[in-house]
């Protein structure tokens, strides 16, 4: 009996590596610590009522960002472990199996559990405020989306200590990822964790599509929307069309692995290449899911701190529409080298190059927004400005990769790795840091410290270049991605040393940013006006942080940059008419999303280990939650006029 328990524990928990035991201990300590602090300060009720059951888009946004920052830390540690291992030839810091797991979790976490939720967090915070709405179209679904993402991320991360991590790469190519060559639970964690959070992403796409189309303030026509809202509208459309392909692909591979089907296997007529097609049919649009929103953020920030309206607004919109359409006809460029005939590769080469046209147009429009502006170098603006040259490098190398015959030489090499980090770091990461600093006062009511913010920017940005510029050359020297080690004497060592230094520099920049967040939480300058940056769009017309109902009066919009126009009118002495308050209709908090997602976690965990005695009750729990929800008739409440007056008076906004 004891022996069988022992052997089960040895299989269930990942054993044999001091780093894993360290992680086990720190996870246990952190969990005990959190529980103890919450209990000691009697915060359980507060946590449940104010956060876990909240359907307020602002709080959901904050939870998304906290989770994404934690995941960024984990993904970053993964990156540093890889860089340490590759600093010198033939190091034994990580063995092959461990390294393979680390690059797999690094990629998956950074894309699925950092980039996407960070963007979802920022759009949750900013979009309803930018369009003058009091919440999103489906607040319940919004909370459910967050909790599905959260349990998906937790399930995926659990693989580190229980059962073992996936090791087939974030792209998980069949047949290697299928059960024939990759037995064990690791790949199941990938499939289930990503699947569960993917359902949440799809729901978020639908939610924001409807929110933006149906809930804009009166007078805000589509072409008067802020550019960030435009970018989210287009992103939502991409999410809705791209994610189903991934959902299906993940489901098919899950069926392969759990129930012995042969969609992607070598045997029985399975087609490994089908996975590559389905994966990248989602995977390429996914790149724009995480890029278009930051294009929106940069548009807002550059216009705000150049003190000008965005240059070429309509062209900016249409170029994003063009990118979104093109993003669906370029997926094959991820496998030019998989035996396509010349005409097929020619088509996808050209369709990929075409993306450079709308993207180039956007770069020039940003440059000409700066032109004739009055440029103010705030921390968010520094991130936005650094984006332009750094992202352009990623963009031009992207065009080089688009040329199929040349891609035969770049593919799977560090040239490719350098390219997508140039776009995803200089684009997405700079963008989310930019948005974080820009909207921070709106989220919490105080500013992040500018000096520390600028230091963290310079350290991170310079280190990024130290890490990734040499990487292009390493690729041309023939070093391929996903090698856990390399022999000496190939001339690769000096570049690898430089890259590792850069990577640790980026880590230092991130640590300084985290320190800035903690420091500013205690000493940060209060944002009393709600408009610390002299903003142009409606989110700056509310208090910081905005009241639960966002706007006491729904704003009326007549022009682009609605708040800038209002401020000019006020300056001219036209304050507008004073209106009386009316009770505000708001959705009730609900515990169903977090409970339903927990059942989803149980079902997912059961499926990972093929414990159907656990998975089936989990699924039943999910269905029970759906049924319970359908019997909730009283799902809203009214905020009384007295309370509105009290809240508005507290922020000095009582008109």
């Amino acid at each position, binding site marked *: 009996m004891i022996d069988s328990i022992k052997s089960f524990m040895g299989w269930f928990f990942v054993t044999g590596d001091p780093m894993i035991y360290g992680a086990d201990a720190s996870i246990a300590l952190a969990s005990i610590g959190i529980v103890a602090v919450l209990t000691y300060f009697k915060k359980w009720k507060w946590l449940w009522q104010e956060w876990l059951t909240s359907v307020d888009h602002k709080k959901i946004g904050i939870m998304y960002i906290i989770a994404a920052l934690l995941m960024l830390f984990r993904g970053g540690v993964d990156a540093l472990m890889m860089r340490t291992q590759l600093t010198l030839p033939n190091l034994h810091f990580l063995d092959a199996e461990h390294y*393979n797991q680390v690059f797999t979790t690094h990629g998956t976490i950074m894309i699925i559990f950092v980039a996407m939720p960070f963007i979802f967090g920022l759009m949750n915070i900013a979009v309803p405020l930018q369009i003058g709405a009091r919440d999103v179209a489906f607040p319940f679904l919004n909370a459910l989306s967050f909790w599905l993402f959260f349990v998906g991320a937790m399930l995926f991360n659990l693989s580190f200590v229980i059962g073992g991590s996936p090791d087939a790469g974030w792209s998980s*190519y069949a*047949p*290697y990822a299928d059960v*024939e*060559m990759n037995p064990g639970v690791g790949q199941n964690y990938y499939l289930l964790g990503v699947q569960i959070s993917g359902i949440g992403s799809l729901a978020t796409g639908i939610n924001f599509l409807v929110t933006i189309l149906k809930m804009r303030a009166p007078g805000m026509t589509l072409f008067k929307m802020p550019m960030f809202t435009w970018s989210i509208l287009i992103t939502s459309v991409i999410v809705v069309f791209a994610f189903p392909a991934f959902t299906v692909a993940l489901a098919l591979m899950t069926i392969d692995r759990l129930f012995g089907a042969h969609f992607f296997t*070598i*045997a*029985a*007529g399975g*087609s*490994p*290449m089908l996975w590559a097609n389905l994966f990248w049919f989602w995977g390429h649009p996914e790149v724009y899911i995480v890029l278009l929103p930051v294009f929106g953020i940069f548009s807002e920030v550059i216009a705000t701190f150049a*003190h*000008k*309206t965005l240059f070429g607004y309509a*062209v900016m919109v249409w170029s994003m529409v063009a990118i979104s359409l093109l993003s669906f006809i370029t997926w094959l460029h991820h*496998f030019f*080298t998989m*035996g396509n*005939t*010349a005409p097929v590769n020619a088509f996808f*080469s050209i369709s990929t190059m*075409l993306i*450079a046209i709308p993207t*180039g*147009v956007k770069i020039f429009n940003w*440059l*000409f927004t700066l*032109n*004739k*502006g009055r*440029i103010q170098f705030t921390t968010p603006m520094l991130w936005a400005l650094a984006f332009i*040259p*750094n992202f*352009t490098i990623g963009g*031009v*190398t992207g*065009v*080089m990769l688009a*040329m199929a*015959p*040349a891609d*035969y*030489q770049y*593919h*799977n090499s560090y040239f490719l790795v350098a390219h997508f980090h140039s776009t995803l770091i200089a684009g997405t990461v700079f963008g989310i840091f930019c948005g974080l600093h820009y909207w921070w006062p709106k989220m919490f009511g105080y500013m992040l410290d500018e000096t520390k913010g600028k230091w963290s920017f*310079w350290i991170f940005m310079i280190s990024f*270049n130290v890490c990734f*510029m*040499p990487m292009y*050359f390493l690729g*041309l*020297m*023939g070093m*391929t*991605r996903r090698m856990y080690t*390399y022999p000496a004497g190939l*001339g690769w060592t000096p*570049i690898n040393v430089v890259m590792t230094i850069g990577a640790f520099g980026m880590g230092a920049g991130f640590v300084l940013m985290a320190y800035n967040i903690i420091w500013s939480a205690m000493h940060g300058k209060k944002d009393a006006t709600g408009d610390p940056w002299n903003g142009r769009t409606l989110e700056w017309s509310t208090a910081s942080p905005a009241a639960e109902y966002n706007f006491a009066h729904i704003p009326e919009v007549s022009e682009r940059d609605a708040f800038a126009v209002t401020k000019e009118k006020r300056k001219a002495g036209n304050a507008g008419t004073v209106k009386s308050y009316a009770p505000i209709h708001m959705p009730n908090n609900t515990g169903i999303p977090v409970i339903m997602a927990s059942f989803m976690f149980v079902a997912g965990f059961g499926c990972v280990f093929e414990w159907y005695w656990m998975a089936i009750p989990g699924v039943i729990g999910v269905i029970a939650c759906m049924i319970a929800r359908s019997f909730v008739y009283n799902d809203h409440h009214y905020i009384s006029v007295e309370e509105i007056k009290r809240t508005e008076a507290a922020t000095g906004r009582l008109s």
Partner: protein
Amino acid sequence: MKKLKILIKPMLLLLAVPMLTMLTGCSDKIAVLNPQGPVARSQYHLIIWSLIMMSFVLAIVLIIFVYVLARYGRKKSAGYDPDDTGNRKLEIIWMIVPVVICVLLAVPTVKTLFSLSNPPKATAMQSKTAGKTLTIDVTSVQWKWLFRYPNQKIETVNYVVIPAGTPVKFRLHAYDAMNAFWVPELGGQQYTMTDMPMKLWLQADKPGNYDGRSSNYSGKGFAHMTFKVMARSATDFDSWVQSVKSNKPALTHEKYMELLKPNTVKPQEFSSYPELVSKDLNKAQMEALMNGDPVETDKMNGMDMDKENNGKGGHDHND
């Protein structure tokens, strides 16, 4: 001006890092920029052409970027114009210029793409090999490379000898995981797959040894999945084939099954191989065969469209 100075420093650094790398690293270490055969050379020309065009684009962006920051980044910079919100003429220009650049890049791309599906022009001097090609079947197995010479009837592991100046058609197969066959100095890569034989033409200008490796991740031993391509003169190649045929052991069925297990092995060579090897069975088919089940061989033709070359069309150095 102070702001500008702090901006210029990182910009210089940004340019300096790759430049230094370029200058300090020996250029022959940069395999892709050191082509040793016609396929790699055509890709190299394309790369250099795109590099020129893209440097031009990057330069324009950087010049405008530095200019606007220098001009409008100061506290009291003159010329502030909040009503400057669009300029039809300029916007049309920067829409047309990228279109032109795309055309300039797309035309050579498509040309090279079509030319690569044909054998490169043979440059060997000896009349014996002129106009002839060599076919080699490559199979990736976790984590090793098997090379089969269908006309010479010999087999090597983890290294391949080819005659310089002769176009070599590599027919690529995978036994288990997908890999990619890449010899950067001779030309770009192509995947090996289990259900679709692929074709890759390569040719070495002159005798020499070239590093090859798998570039597509395939599991634990992936980093060690390297091979050498040894280009030799036609006569040296022929004598090498002869010496393998007369001095090396035959590949037995047992030895072959041993090679198909996932592990890493040393380079080796065999004077002959059993008939089973030339069937190019993948793992699932092999297991079915061993269990006595019917073997499904619904192979797609894939890249290898020219049927007449199936194991017969290659030149034979032993005639």
